């Protein structure tokens, strides 16, 4: 109760101070007036996808106004929810079930029309499967060179991103009139979903038909935290030897820690784990509090996806494995003995 009261008091103070803060901002920077960002928000079955809220945070860093964009069956209901996202001035909603499956063939013309109308200088989406598939198509329609997997925003036209599997960090300046970015989910925390008061507006619906038909999906169901946003990740590699051993050792360890399960490419290729669990250059990027690598040697393609983790721990029987060069805590040992022991000791704590 206390904390809620405290929060609402804070909100009241903020609400009072907002107009003056805004006007001083406008006076101090003429640029801020011209900058406007469209943040593309993802939703699924009428619920906002928190993974896409990093786009709002990234938009906030640019300094201008930030509008959110939502399309799909219950877009207006989701837009009401999104209007409370801190940092959003307006939410544009297009209610049409044609957009439910995130097909780039009808999403790209949809965004094109709404970007033209809004005169946005920046368009930001999360570097998710949806953002990766959609934004380049949109960029081509706008004749713009998009910038992928942005880790940092240094100015309105200057962005930082990894190249060569994160072995080099590139700073680029865009000369395009509209900047299209996909942002790395582990580099921009999700915007807070409370405290904002954006207006909700209908967007333009060009009703372009998709040339692609969505047939079905098969998603891995799990009660565990989602890999990309989990606080803790335990990840298994080739050292686990088989799917049976992977399934025997990894889930109990993950449960003992409350962690998500990841895998190296070797483990995925050998069929130990589902492809959606792959961590690395061509899989998912994670940056949890704790990344525990089990039976993973630490190839550069794997390190690309996890080396921004706060604490890296590993269990490997090869003391010369490259993973030990990045691990904060390394245990040389047979994982078939050490993992069950670790699981038991963590459970009894």
């Amino acid at each position: 109760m206390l904390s809620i009261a405290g929060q609402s008091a804070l909100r009241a103070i903020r609400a009072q101070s907002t107009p003056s803060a805004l006007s001083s901002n406008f006076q101090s920077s003429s640029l801020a007036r011209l900058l406007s960002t469209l943040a593309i928000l993802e939703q699924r079955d009428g619920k906002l996808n928190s993974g896409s809220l990093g786009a709002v945070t990234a938009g906030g860093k640019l300094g201008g106004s930030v509008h959110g964009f939502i399309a799909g069956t219950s877009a207006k209901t989701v837009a009401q929810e999104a209007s409370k996202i801190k940092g959003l001035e307006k939410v544009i909603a297009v209610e049409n079930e044609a957009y439910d499956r995130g097909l780039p063939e009808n999403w790209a013309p949809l965004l094109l029309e709404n970007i033209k109308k809004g005169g946005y200088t920046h368009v930001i989406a999360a570097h998710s499967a949806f953002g990766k598939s959609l934004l380049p198509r949109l960029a081509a329609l706008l004749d713009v060179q998009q910038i992928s997997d942005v880790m940092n925003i240094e100015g309105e036209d200057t962005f930082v991103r990894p190249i060569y599997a994160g072995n080099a960090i590139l700073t680029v300046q865009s000369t395009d009139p509209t900047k299209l970015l996909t942002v790395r989910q582990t580099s921009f925390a999700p915007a807070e979903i409370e405290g904002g008061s954006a207006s909700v507006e209908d967007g333009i619906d060009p009703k372009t038909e998709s040339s692609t038909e969505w047939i079905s999906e098969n998603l891995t169901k799990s009660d565990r935290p989602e890999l990309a946003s989990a606080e803790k990740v335990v990840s298994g590699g080739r050292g686990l030897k088989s799917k049976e051993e992977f399934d025997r050792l990894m889930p109990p360890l993950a449960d003992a820690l409350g962690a998500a399960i990841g895998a190296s490419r070797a483990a995925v290729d050998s069929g130990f784990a589902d492809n959606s669990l792959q961590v690395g250059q061509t899989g998912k990027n994670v940056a949890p509090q704790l990344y525990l690598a089990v039976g993973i040697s630490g190839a550069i393609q794997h390190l690309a996806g996890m080396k921004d983790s706060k604490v890296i721990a590993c269990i490997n029987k090869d003391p010369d494995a490259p993973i030990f060069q990045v691990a904060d805590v390394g245990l040389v040992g047979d994982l078939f003995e050490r993992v069950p022991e670790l699981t038991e000791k963590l459970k009894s704590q």
Partner: protein
Amino acid sequence: MSSKLRILVPVKRVIDYAVKPRVKSDRTGVETSGVKHSLNPFDELSIEEAVRLRERKQPVEDILAVSAGPAKCADTLRTAMAMGADRSIHVDVPEDKPLEPLGVAKLLKAIAEKEQSNLIILGKQAIDDDAGQTGQMLAGLLNWPQATQASKVSIDNDTVTVEREVDGGVETLRAKLPMIITTDLRLNEPRYASLPNIMKAKKKKLEKKTLGDYGVDATSRLKTIKVEEPPVRQGGGKVEDVDGMINRLKELGAI
């Protein structure tokens, strides 16, 4: 009536995936001279898939491999032809002025139209710039359907069904030719080019072209400000046993 498949497979010459790239001391880029280069791994999957379509008795009329870059891209194209591409086009682009994905997409659009391609299979990303954009941009420019990160492709007459990798699983899409597909690692396992096939590839046609031949303006939109080494992580040393690991993780606040 089913169309004959005229498959276009764009390939890129990149630093070999097993080489650890070194950033140049003047911070303008990554050292590429004297470094082993190979065909981008995702592009090997594209060639392999095109060849397998033919082997699965699809009406494949032509598999054309295309690369844009310096003279050495010809080697990359020979590899593609040794794997089964019928012919190739090398578009000469100076090493110091590489194309951005948008420029590549514009060039590929011009080539696809000239060659009457109806299926374009690209890698989902090049492992050097890691942009992951060219296929989608090309689909946008041509206004063709797209299926990115494909793990399974089947064609029945003019209908293409693709299973694609998405966050959390797979989804299945269906579209009509012409179409753009980008490959994910799970799609197939590329073959090695056998010696006889490498010899045969030397006799296959390799056309040399320039950007001007296609009337493509591929002016760069991005300026490289700098390229840096990522912050180096220091390994924190090893612990003796499981208790040591738990204690250290507690000290670090990780559990």
